[in-house]
């Protein structure tokens, strides 16, 4: 088991405020989904609150919780295609006031789509899953198939353009 000392926890919990999600997970900005997941596991092995169950010092406990929550937050944003894209834009505009923490777009939490056909919906959802698993070719195939059932859907078209334009 990888050990972390109290001193290291204090240093990390201070420094983490200045780190972006890539730095928190110790991955490069072009990391693949698999790399992000591995990094999340790796960092969790060190900082999971369960490792500190016998710890009595509330201050150290709070610091470890803070780090642990930020590791989870980094994972939530970077594993999600949409969120990561918006976060990357946000990071690029850092000088213009964009922070290093992802800002949830509250108006978009309940996503609406324009897919009515159940077949198209099923294929679309399947494609979303495949994007998450980096099976881009399968996703493209299913999105195209979904368009057969729902030819006018902007949601499907947009998603298709998105993944075709981005090389993953």
């Amino acid at each position, binding site marked *: *088991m990888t050990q972390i000392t109290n001193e290291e926890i204090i240093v990390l919990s201070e420094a983490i405020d200045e780190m972006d999600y890539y730095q928190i997970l110790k991955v490069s900005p072009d990391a693949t989904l698999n790399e992000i997941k591995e990094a999340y*596991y790796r960092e*969790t*092995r060190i900082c*999971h*609150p*369960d*490792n500190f*169950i*016998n710890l009595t010092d509330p201050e150290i406990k709070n610091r470890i*919780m803070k780090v*642990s*929550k930020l590791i*989870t*937050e980094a*994972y*939530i944003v970077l594993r999600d295609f949409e969120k990561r894209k918006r976060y990357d834009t946000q990071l690029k505009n850092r000088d213009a006031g964009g922070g290093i923490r992802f800002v*949830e777009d*509250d108006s978009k*939490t*309940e996503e609406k789509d324009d897919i009515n056909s159940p077949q198209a919906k099923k294929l679309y*959802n*399947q494609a*979303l*899953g495949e994007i*998450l*698993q980096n099976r881009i070719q399968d996703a493209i195939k299913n999105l195209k198939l979904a368009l057969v059932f729902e030819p006018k859907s902007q949601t499907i078209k947009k998603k298709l353009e998105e993944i075709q334009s981005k090389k993953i």
Partner: protein
Amino acid sequence: MKEPVIGIDLGTSYSCVATVIDGMPTVIPNEWGERIHASVVSFLENDRIIVGNEAKKRIIVNPENTVYSAKRLIGRYFFSEEVKKARAMCSYQIVEGPNSSVRILINGRQYSIPEISALVLREMKTIAENYLNTKVSKAVITVPAFFNDNQRQATKDAGKIAGLDVLRIINEPTAAALAYGFGKGISQKVAVYDLGGGTFDVSILDIGNDMFEVLSTAGDTYLGGDDMDIKIMEYLVDLIKRQFNFDPMQDKHILQRLRDYSEKAKIGFSDKDRVEISIKNLFTGADNKPRDFYTVITSDQFREMVTPILQRTFKVCDEALQSGKLTIGDIQGIILVGGPTRLPIVREYARYYFQKEPLYGINPDEVVAIGAAIQGDSLVDETKKSTFLLDVTPLTLRIATVGGFTDPIIPRNSPLPIERKRKFTTSRDNQDRVRIRVLQGESNKADECELLGEFEFSGFKIAPRGEVTIEVSFDINTDGIVNVSARDVETGVEQSTTIYLNAGLSAEEVEMSQDLSQEIVIERDRSNLPDIKE
């Protein structure tokens, strides 16, 4: 020798306790060799009680003083639908306590639900202590994945009242996956189909070497094996009405007997094609003569009765898959948990839905307790941290807004631990306090969600409206327990928080219950018990 940690599956109908002995996860039997124990508490005279299978026998003979299915009531407000349903069904008295809480009235004394659950937990603790011949104080307790914050908090309180140091509250499906000891080979996606007595949930896990990552979870807190019993009971009631021109619904005692026979019939279908139901002296007719009842239920009839219930479970499975952006083809393993999954019809439907043979290796009644024991052992073992549970929050955390609506703060299936912040400004001049109602649920309407509590923040500077901004942190820890705090953005000063409405017990109440609970003696000598006359 290091102090043992016990894993407790605190079920709606049955509970089970396990521990790891010399590296081997072991279910701990009681003195009579019983490995699972009815989650039933029966009150005798003079602060004496019985817990477990012996207590279950008394639901019929001592209905007002025998408490069962307390898990359905834990962490609920008195005005909730669940409590209303329970009040109509249960033979013991459910009354309203302070702050809209639920209390059970026995022999003129009121008990909170955590106090009742604590008695079941204390019995589990005692069983372990007798078997291991040593004091036990540390435990991991499981809850349905779908439990909200109130229910988790109340379960933790029950542990404390029982004199246990609850190391972790973990989710039943995650525990089940742990028990099957995945993660030793390649990583794979596993669905845990958990059909218990009172609740159903399904979780999809991605299991790597030492990581048990929950991808999504979905459930129904009012769907379980009990619904099968009720279906059979309704069938019997109908039959009796037609055969005798007598309505058993009018008599809670008779109804409870029918319920018992229904449960036995259901269990019978685990290995039989037809089940006979023969009840002596069901009721006394107008001529003062006792009436006996006899019928046979075939597996085809049983199938017809339970199919709608099982269909509902697979709708929940659809939901979990969709939420995890997965399809059935992604699932490489299926674990069945809960007594009802022993029924061939459940296995058949599960096989058909997942298109794969489910895993049966471990007794579905014991698998959760075993997983909890493994996790407990891993938590206290400093030398090897073998497994990590990466769980998600099953319900969206929300705040109430104007007009009875809500705003989502933390979406369901978010990995834990997690924190989200929200800024609030004052809306009136010289406003000195801000109140926030926090809820959990999937509806944007407040009354369709479960209310967690109402928080009031005060102590910030008095200023014209809009000039004071406070930042509220919503925090969910790895046990799934919610914490809300606030600070003044300008000064950074932490605001004092008052909780106005809360379903749970305060720290003082828990402490008081702890003391009171000590006065109750669990009767363990069965020869000493009053006879049951049926």
